């Protein structure tokens, strides 16, 4: 009888998981675990902190917000005056749907802002946060 309830609980909770977890997260979690065996999961809070983290570049303050604005649900602008469609999936469902594209822009923009690559932990944290925005 107990096993029945456990099985039922699993069946009920699985679809709920599928709905909330972003499809790119399992891959990043696996990578993060490889990078650091003590990996305990992703944090939206850390993802948000990364988005607002400021760096000095050539005397100018830079962060993700420089192009994506302080609200990633809004339209942004590149330094070359190109319109940037909203980054948050709630405002722009195409975002974070193509793994190749996601990797390309993490590669470019982490280098632009932090002059380094972002770790799988950071990418997962970030997607967890940006995907949680309503």
């Amino acid at each position, binding site marked *: 009888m107990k096993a029945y309830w456990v099985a039922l609980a699993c069946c009920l909770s699985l679809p709920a998981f599928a709905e909330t977890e972003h499809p790119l997260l399992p891959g990043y979690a696996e990578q993060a675990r490889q990078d650091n065996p003590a990996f305990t999961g992703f944090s939206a809070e850390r993802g948000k902190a990364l988005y607002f983290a400021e760096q000095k*570049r*050539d005397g100018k303050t830079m962060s993700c917000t420089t192009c994506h604005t302080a609200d990633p649900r809004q339209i942004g602008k*590149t*330094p*070359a*005056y*190109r319109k940037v469609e909203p980054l948050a999936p709630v405002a722009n469902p195409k975002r974070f749907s193509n793994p*190749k594209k996601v990797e*390309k822009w993490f*590669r*470019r*923009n982490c*280098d*632009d802002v932090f002059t380094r690559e972002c770790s799988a932990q950071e990418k997962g944290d970030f997607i967890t946060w940006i995907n949680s925005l309503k």
Partner: protein
Amino acid sequence: MRRGKPLAVALVALAVAGFTIADDDEHRYKRPKRLAVPADAPQIWKDECASCHMLYSPGLLPAEAWRRQMDTLNDHYGSNASLEPEEEREIRAFLLRASARNHLPVEPAKTAGEPPRISQTRWFEHKHDEVSAAKFRRESVGGRANCVACHRDAERGDFDEDRVKIPR
């Protein structure tokens, strides 16, 4: 008559020198003329190059300048614009092919280490010498690299002077 010969030679030499100077001067202000974006331009070129800045018609620079752009995408005027090798090859091939009619000399950028800039070519400076620095600084204009602000069809390679409108 014998004296006339050296004089004639000197005159010819002068004329040749004069021509050379005039030619050089003209060359200096020769501007690219084949600017229309080819109809078969690959979508990947549009997608990749226009996600951060306006789409620059390949004819604006000679092929060698584009080669230098494509060789330095990791540090593209301060931004990482690196591409996947396959995308890189396709875009490079298109740029070299579509800029083949531009026979102007490559003019290096003023900042060491940067690839050539369209906005720092002599013809660009000459064509815009009546546009003040203050106008270029306007938020609505967005600098010398943002052609579309004033040339509304710039991304199709249309820079017709009669249609220029500098926004307030």
